[in-house]
């Protein structure tokens, strides 16, 4: 299946920005079941985009812009040929042994509640790791309500688990915290999802988790949807948590308040109405995004 993606991020500022620097993890790579036909990043302002790779093997672009700048729009657009692999990831660039993904990070720390939850699931599932992971997947999907209002990018796994609410990122962090607590190497995946309903216009990208199972390798788990990833899941970046796979991390000098809006379109054909697409996510307070103002 050929999936078409357009992802636009638009920033507007109250005052002109003097300079800006951003780290972009916005470009998918090829692996079994995922072949990138074409992919490009466009800016509506003059800037330098320096391509590279981070130590996890993600494509990393460093973007530098000089002001004065009152707005910026980053457009990512491309097509990816996708095949279903039953959620199993093969042929991806692996820079570390799986055991690295047992590290704790502040966003994925298992508190006592998550630890108890993980042990309860594991107790029911028995010794089969895959069963345990499916148990976690089902339980997190049913117990944590998808809600875009209660959490932000700084919300930890334990906060989301206490709230029993969150977005795909929060559910993934809870999954990661619980699985790592059980000694299963687990990582965060940022990407895009083509929805099964006909709603091709979305307000954000998608996130899920991958756990390492002996004999199978890395297997995806999408707790927001309660399924393993299918041909509809385009993997863009992986990391220990959201911060390591964040699409955009930035800092700027000047600008005062920032508004950031996101528009994502994912469809299995080139959408006829793409040019007319004018719906943006409602503006979000920038500090809730990974992008922070850097005070001079």
């Amino acid at each position, binding site marked *: 299946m050929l999936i078409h993606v357009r992802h636009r991020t638009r920033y507007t500022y109250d005052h002109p920005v003097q*300079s800006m*620097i*951003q*780290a972009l993890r916005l470009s998918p790579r090829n692996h079994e079941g995922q072949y990138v036909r074409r992919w490009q990043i466009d800016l509506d302002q003059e800037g*330098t985009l*320096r391509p*590279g790779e*981070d*130590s*996890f093997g993600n494509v990393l672009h*460093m973007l*530098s812009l*000089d002001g004065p700048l009152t707005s910026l729009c980053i457009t990512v657009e491309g097509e990816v040929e996708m095949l279903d692999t039953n959620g199993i990831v093969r042929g991806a660039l692996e*820079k*570390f*042994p799986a*055991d*690295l993904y*047992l*590290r*704790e990070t502040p966003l994925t720390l298992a508190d006592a509640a998550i630890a108890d939850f993980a042990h309860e699931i594991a107790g029911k599932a028995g010794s089969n790791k895959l069963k345990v992971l499916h148990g976690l997947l089902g339980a997190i999907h049913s117990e944590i309500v998808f809600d875009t209002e209660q959490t932000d990018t700084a919300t930890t796994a334990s906060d989301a688990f206490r709230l029993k609410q969150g977005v795909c990122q929060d559910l993934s962090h809870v999954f990661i915290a619980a699985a790592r607590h059980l000694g299963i190497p687990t990582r965060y995946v940022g990407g895009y999802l083509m929805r099964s309903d006909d709603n091709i216009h979305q307000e954000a990208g998608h996130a899920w988790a991958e756990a390492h199972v002996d004999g199978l390798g890395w297997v995806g788990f999408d707790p927001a949807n309660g399924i393993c990833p299918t041909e509809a899941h385009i993997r863009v970046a992986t990391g*220990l948590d959201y*911060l390591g796979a964040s699409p955009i*991390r*930035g*800092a700027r*000098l000047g600008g005062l308040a920032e508004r950031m809006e996101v528009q994502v379109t994912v469809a299995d054909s080139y959408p006829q109405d793409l040019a007319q697409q004018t719906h943006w996510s409602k503006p979000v307070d920038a500090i809730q995004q*990974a992008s*922070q103002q*850097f*005070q*001079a």
Partner: protein
Amino acid sequence: MPFDEMRLEDGSVRAPYLEVAKWLEGVTSAQLERRRAEAELFYRRGGITFAVYGDAQGEERIIPYDIIPRILAAQEWAKLKAGLEQRIKALNAYLADIYGPREILKAGIVPPDLVWRNPAYRPEMAGLAVPHGIYIHIAGIDIVRVDGDDFYVLEDNARTPSGVSYMLGGREISIRLMPELYGAHRVAPVENYPNELLATLQSAAPRNATKDVTAVLLTPGQFNSAYYEHSFLADKMGIELVEGSDLFVRDSVVFMRTTEGPKRVDIIYRRLDDAFIDPLVFDPHSMLGVPGLFAAYTAGNVTLANAVGTGAVDDKVVYSYVPDMVRFYLGEEPLLKNVPTWRCRDPNDLAYVLDHLSELVVKEVHGSGGYGMLVGPHATGADIALFRDKLKADPTNYIAQPTLSLSTCPAFVDMGIAPRHVDLRPFILTGADGIRIVPGGLTRVALRAGSLVVNSSQGGGTKDTWVVES
């Protein structure tokens, strides 16, 4: 009886201390007291203070200075120096390995989780070629003695070790306040440390840097406990003392804002922890760092001294493997000894430790500054019970060592001249042109009678250290 560096057990004086003993006989307590007061005034006027973390008042204090110098014979120093050079080579080789080919893990010498799950290991550094392959440009390796023969390493400090300003301040006081005693010895100089440090930093510039390289010292700012040292060293080296907001990155090159416009920076002696150096890569809330700095570093356009992620070699469990690193990377036997260490992560070791808490020193694997440790022989029953629970709850977080009978040196205390326990922190500089160690280092002294804790945060003081030619 602990080993006393001045006197043999029969009370006779060891050769390196003959002049000091003579001087101590001829000087009155009143004279010593006056000199001590003058030394304190020197520190107070110089603003050489430190803040104690965890102190409710957060007050600035002066580290007590003991005016009686510690003496090391030149031949003793030569032996120690060779051991330090060997050790720093092994530590550096380990970092190059765990961020590169990972041979020591493949060889089964270091358990992999000590790398992969070590919070001080920075996965972002993996596969990165640091300039000249140097990770630890500046190290402080803490040394203790228990007899006249061997030097033991207590811990390796490979992140941003501090204390060198006290070494330099102490020497200045010796020369000013005790010219007669100083003049009676041929004391090897330490005053050239800032020059040696600058030469080390400059030698470590990226290979693509121009001939006229620019180094800066990056400080977290005046609220850091070692701020005085940062400004002191920058001043002595004649380089700019900068905070994160004085630097910026454009197109993977680091610049410093100056009144004459942007100036390219080649080497950053950073006294800022890894987590804070770049909000785009590490702690996203850090306001102390420079956005884009890590990208400039990975592009090979700037040298960070020390490199990022050096803490992966200096925790107290990894410490216990350093002798193996010396053998593995250098094919040599270690010249410096390690203190025997029980790893509580190992069930057998844990059982032994739990049975012998009253004899052992128990430390947190990632602890520092003398915090969070148990000194068994000096602890109350309640302290020991508390630690027993901590150990059982989280054994991997602890190691234990025998209580070493640290050597003593004469110190001037309220009751007069009395032996007090000491350690030594020499500073090891590694540049592209070799290793430099100024003779001596910072001697820390536990001024409370019988105390083995020399940390300044725990009431320890400092002494000048003289490496003397006989």
